């Protein structure tokens, strides 16, 4: 996983609530056995017409948002299925940060595991950033995870909250399996206790 420290880039406005994971990556694209290559199918049903041509009305088909690294949306982003293909598709497209008033729990979790930073900010702030984003290439926004601020194109800094452990893992690009493996003695002793109390859980 790539570390996330500071990102300055173009933000794409997606003024929609309840953007579900079927919208982010429809189920027919989940048949891959790899983590990469899903960027072309990101938002497929919105991004392409039935004949496969691009829908010019969709934001990611417009300049400069084809190079967007940040996505700004409304409430409950990432609701629906647990598919990690959703953050994989965002990442493969080039998006490293999603800003929204709130996120569905599983998507929120999955994002951190893939070096994508989900930033929760109040709706009115998201609306402000959405207006900034509509200004296009001259309106790059910065997300500074070290200092926990989003910097608007006019220089205004907006602080955001983030879980300290998740921040640490993201800043250092750490995978948490290796970290948990160090707790093996504690897991061993939990299993020994549980096996004694509830032997039927073990076969």
């Amino acid at each position: 996983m790539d570390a996330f420290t500071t990102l300055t880039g173009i933000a794409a406005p997606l003024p929609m609530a309840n953007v579900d994971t079927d919208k982010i990556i429809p189920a027919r694209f989940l048949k891959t056995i790899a983590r990469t290559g899903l960027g072309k199918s990101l938002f497929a049903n919105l991004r392409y017409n039935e004949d496969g041509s691009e829908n010019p009305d969709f934001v990611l088909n417009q300049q400069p948002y084809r190079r967007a690294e940040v996505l700004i949306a409304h409430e409950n982003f990432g609701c629906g299925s647990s598919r990690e293909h959703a953050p994989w598709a965002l990442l493969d497209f080039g998006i490293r940060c999603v800003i929204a008033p709130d996120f569905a729990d599983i998507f929120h979790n999955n994002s951190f595991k893939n070096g994508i930073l989900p930033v929760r900010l109040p709706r009115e702030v998201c609306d402000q950033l959405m207006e900034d984003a509509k200004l296009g290439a001259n309106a790059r926004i910065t997300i500074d995870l070290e200092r926990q601020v989003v910097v608007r194109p006019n220089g205004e800094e907006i602080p955001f909250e983030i879980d300290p452990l998740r921040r640490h893992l993201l800043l250092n690009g750490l995978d948490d399996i290796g970290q948990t493996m160090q707790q093996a003695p504690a897991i061993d002793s939990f299993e020994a206790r549980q096996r004694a109390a509830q032997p039927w859980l073990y076969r």
Partner: protein
Amino acid sequence: MSATKPRTLYDKIFDAHLVETLPDGTALLYIDRHLVHEVTSPQAFEGLRMAKRPVRRLDGTMAVVDHNIATDASRYTGIEDPESRTQVETLEKNVKEFNVPYIPLTDARQGIVHVIGPEQGLSLPGMTIVCGDSHTSTHGAMGALAFGIGTSEVEHVLATQTLLQKRAKNMRVTVDGVLPVGCTAKDIVLAIIGKIGTAGGNGHVIEFAGSAIRALDMAGRFSVCNMSIEGGARAGMIAPDETTFEYARGRPFAPQGEAFDRAVEWWKTLPSDEGAVFDKEVFLDAAEIVPMVSWGTSPEDVLPITAAVPDPESGGDEARRAQLRRMVEYMGLTPGQKLTDLKVDVVFIGSCTNSRIEDMRAAAQIARGRHVAEGVRAMVVPGSGLVKQQAEREGLDAIFRDAGFEWREAGCSMCLGMNPDKLTPGQRCASTSNRNFEGRQGPGGRTHLCSPAMAAAAAVTGFLTDVREIV
């Protein structure tokens, strides 16, 4: 936490599986059961392979294929779609390489992972259960803590049998009273989601309680917990009681004999204590519930079948109005149109929400002696090979076939548009599944969520129908 403080069902199971609390308060939670399917596991096994890590608890893991497979006889002669085939073959290769227990496609026990977990006794009260699938919340009906995880977490559980978790908030949804005739568990849960919204349970675990929930059989409880995630909650649960214990008794992976009795003793201590505090409480009167149907493209956009399509211009701020306009357009609706005037093209009875034997019986009761309307394709897809066998012993397959329904093999089928069963653009479907998102059942498909009886009623009339008018 003092020993005397009243605790919720969720707190008790969480505490009983706490391996360690990290300095920042994150919990390392032990996972008793890990269910694995072909879609969300290939990259996890690949991760293990790269890091040369084994699966830690083979006896705590079970794999099955369900999402990609066809639900007709063609599945036994090989999967046509090359990508689906690769995904299924990859799982078969992985379970062999890592020695993971596996229920193959040809086994009568094969079926939808959330149907077979409880059916096999793999999912039991008091357990922590995970699967790389958001509808893992289903298993919470056993009185377990069950939730969906992403592929990175699938790998984490395979390698360590644990997960890093923050404690969720507690939410209780109490449904008291007697459910009117024609209403089912599905109508209860659709009404709940309509009330709390699709983000209502974000950050929470929902405990469903009250006399109307207690009165449900296990199939009904699975339907309710299944759709917790549509209300935003990763997990939904119902306190285990005699209904749960009787369901679990004698199942292949359940403890047997004296061990079962000892397990029941522990299970009886799990229900939330008197005075346990919930961060959020919601109440519904069962008597006020009417048969529900979704009209839009989010599961919160549900209405009683007696209602009409809403006017987008009447709702909320501009963003909400834009969303409503989009829904009305996508769904091919006219504001003010009665829901019962909507003609259906397809009826799908199945999915991890509604494919158990009780669901089959409810649909068959409507289908018996009637016939699928002209121009409607209606399919019934049992949740497991064992559900199918049971239904056939009861003659339900004959009732469905005589009425013009397709009687199919077990799988996820038309719930999610990643196997041959899908809608074509513009088709309108009365579906017993759980999600009505745009394109969920196939690009351009239009989904109306409802109960099995309501779906069967739509099949025989050709329109969304108030089932109370034909029973």
